[in-house]
């Protein structure tokens, strides 16, 4: 019973943390982007304000059941993936139910949200949404290839499909995977550009071309919920990368309160540092067309992924 209570509490805590961190990261990105463009930019908590405003819209439009469901699907995808991801290495509060899932499961679960949103966007009947969705899905096929390759490299390197085990193995050997298998890391990093959909891979939403792509018809509480889901999801993605390539955070032997807080801080530093890579890349990049983006992913990143697999085999 106590076990269950801790689990539920841990799940809630994880969710709150992921949400907060994800929203703040979004704010940071906006702020930083503004600074780079020589602007003052919004406040860092601007995303919370936006969310609050969206949720306090008094009328909301839905085009049907799938439209209504789309944000729910996204929330499901974000939270489920989050729950099955070990946030901190071996910590009492944050492992959630991660040991009941593995990498392949997460890989598939990650798609759940995109597909749900695509269905919702499809139901709106807005051609812009549908075009955005086709672009998004096509691009997904692009970046999944190097991503999967790097994951395979890791899995065969450590002979496990559990993220926890990969983290522990890195901690034990003391070498992060981004150094022990740099090729796989690079492949995954390129894939990450696609995942976060910053420039040059922002053809999906393509502001000013497709209205806002798949989310064209979503407003109010729907958009707000999507925003929440996206924030959580981006935290999940970052943590996943940190766990896989940067040894995660925390120490499995030390699970005290202080150690946990330190671990969280380390996690935040690592994730933020990682997050900045696609953001920085985006600042200096124009936009790729979809087929260019796909080819981009299938060229060097995939080659790197292959080398990564070979590297892992050796």
């Amino acid at each position, binding site marked *: 019973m106590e076990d269950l209570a801790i689990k539920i509490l841990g799940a809630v805590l994880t969710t709150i943390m992921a949400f907060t961190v994800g929203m703040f990261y979004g704010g940071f990105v906006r702020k930083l982007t503004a600074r780079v463009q020589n602007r003052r930019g919004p406040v860092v908590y601007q995303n919370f304000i936006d969310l609050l405003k969206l949720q306090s819209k008094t009328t909301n439009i839905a085009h049907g059941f799938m439209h209504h469901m789309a944000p729910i699907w996204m929330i499901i995808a974000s939270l489920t993936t989050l729950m099955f991801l070990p946030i901190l290495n071996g910590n009492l509060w944050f492992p959630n139910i991660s040991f009941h899932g593995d990498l392949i499961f997460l890989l598939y679960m990650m798609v759940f949200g995109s597909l749900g949103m695509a269905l919702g966007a499809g*139901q709106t009947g807005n051609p812009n949404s549908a075009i955005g969705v086709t672009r998004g899905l096509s691009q997904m096929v692009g970046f999944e290839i190097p991503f*999967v390759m790097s994951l395979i490299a890791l899995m065969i390197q450590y002979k496990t499909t559990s993220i926890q085990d990969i983290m522990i193995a890195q901690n034990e050997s003391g070498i992060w995977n981004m150094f022990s298998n740099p090729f796989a890391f690079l492949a995954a990093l390129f894939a990450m550009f696609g995942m976060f959909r910053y420039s040059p891979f922002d053809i999906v939403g393509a502001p000013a071309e497709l209205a806002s792509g798949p989310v064209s018809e979503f407003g109010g509480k729907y958009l707000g919920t999507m925003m929440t889901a996206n924030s959580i999801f981006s935290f999940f993605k970052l943590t996943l990368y940190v766990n896989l390539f940067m040894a995660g955070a925390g120490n499995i032997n030390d699970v005290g309160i202080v150690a946990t807080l330190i671990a969280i801080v380390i996690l935040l530093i690592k994730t933020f540092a990682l997050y900045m890579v696609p953001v920085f890349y985006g600042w200096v990049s124009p936009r790729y067309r979809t087929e260019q983006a796909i080819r981009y992913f299938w060229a060097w990143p995939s080659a790197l992924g292959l080398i990564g697999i070979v590297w892992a085999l050796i």
Partner: protein
Amino acid sequence: MNSFFLILLILLAGAAISFALGKISSIISGTVAFLSIASASVLFFTQLKNNTYIEFPLGEIQLQWGIDSFGYIFALIVLGLGSLASLYSISYMQNKERTGIFYFNFVLVITSMVGIIFSQDFISFFIFWEIMTWSSYLLIIFNKKDVKEIGVKYMIFSAIGAYSMLTAIVMIKGNYNTFLISDAIQAGAFNFTNNEYIPILLLIGFAVKAATMPLHVWAPKAYSNSPMSFTVIFSGAMSKMGVLGMALVLVRIFTFNANNEAILPNFSPIILQQTLAWLGAITAVIATLYALMQDDAKKLLAYSSIAQLGYITVGLAIGTKLSVMAALFLAIVHGIFKGALFMVAGAVERQAGTTDMTKVSGLIRKMPFTFFTALIAIIALAGIPPLGGFVGKWMLYESLITESNSYFLVILVFFSSTSAFLYCYRFLFGLFLGQEEEATKDVKEAPITMIIPMLILSVLLMVTGAYPGILFDPIAKGMETIGFNNVTWDMSVLGNIWGNSVNMIYVWLTIVIVFIAAFIFLTLKGLKGTRYVSTKDISTSGEIPLEHENLTFQINFFQPFRRAAAPMYKRSMDKIWNEIGSGLESLFNFTRKIYTGNGQTYAIFVIAFLVLMLLLKDTLFLN
């Protein structure tokens, strides 16, 4: 009377009666077909015990029928799906012509598949196999579309397959002097070291039905052009007969080490195994690429079937416990979800008149139950958790990563599986989402007899997602029958040999809890201010679309992807086969010209032949 004969007799009688009643009323005819299949299923699952056999002679050939745990897996697919499909087709075939012939062949296909499952000897196996082939041929060309091309292609490839199988069978007879499958296995007929032709020929035979590259070219049109209620069986169950055979042969090619892990005996089967696995993976990729370019939902599903069968082939070829289990699990689940999807396509075809996605869209509000089925089946098809499709895919990937040494195969399979999301989305979007156009304004939901089987299948998909153990049980028993030992399984925990696992119950719990919470939140929040609008009420830069204006984005749907993957679309197996075909045809035209129609020429032939024979007589006859 013996249950084996009784089951077949009931089915045959059902076929004959529904044929006779076809002239009177298609509904009665269909009901008879359904009743016969359903009662045969009931008999099968209640009366027949596993591992019962009967033997009887036919001439000098000893025939043996029986049911073992392995056949039981496929009986589940055939009879389960058969009953549902026949129930479905009562309404589907309503008001169509020649329903008598349809139901006759429909029941005959199921009879022959049950017969294949019963067969424990090659002769009855082959006989039922061929009955299955020609009765399905008659159903494929039932719609009278492209009869020549589709029918001839199907028959040619079926014949190639069947005759390779027949060659292998007579070779087994020649080498081991037996027609019994168990005896042949005992004698090592499938063992590579003894004779490599027999297993290869058998595999070719089965690969045709399993639509493996390069023998798949018959499949897309055959699947999409037959009546949908038959395609449910065709793609869902009949292709599994190929899987049945392949599993039976492939597993025997391996030998087992002390821990009962499959290992390969020597070099040449590795080539075979890898070839087959790669063929399967390439099939999956190519078929997926073609599937996502289709504008017709039926064709899309047809290609998708080929792709899914490719995964199954990969799983069987890898041949470890986990991968074979994955393959068999996928086989069953594919039967369920592809059956459901073809039923959906059929329902749309019946209600909206076409499944061309450029013409139909926005049916979700009109056909909610159909959409629900399509949604569930597509989620399973895409392999997204938490449904049954995911379980199979997971096991397949895990086995590929953990147990095979061909990691590039994983990439290929994964590529296909990721690209599959595209066509999965296309199917749902094309038929059900998007704008509600005027053309489909009056579409109604399909009749209840079509809805019920579809809903049953969707529920099955959910159940197999949460408790895959329900299917693991028969599969594990079946695998033990064909040679694996100690096949372990768990009700809802999937595990690989590295000791990692996924617990489907936790997945379900998480998803359901989050779903309920999010659904309540999102629905109740601002309930008053939430309103549902028509699909014409969209932001179109202020322009107001009129009723007849088609706003649906359907043509060249995945154009960017196609551009990116252009090199992969350049060649197609179909073209190569067509070239071979036309080459042969011109050759045959040449041989035909030997018969000039001129009596003098014929006389010269005779004389020349006589002279030749007289010259060669000693070398010919005195050796």
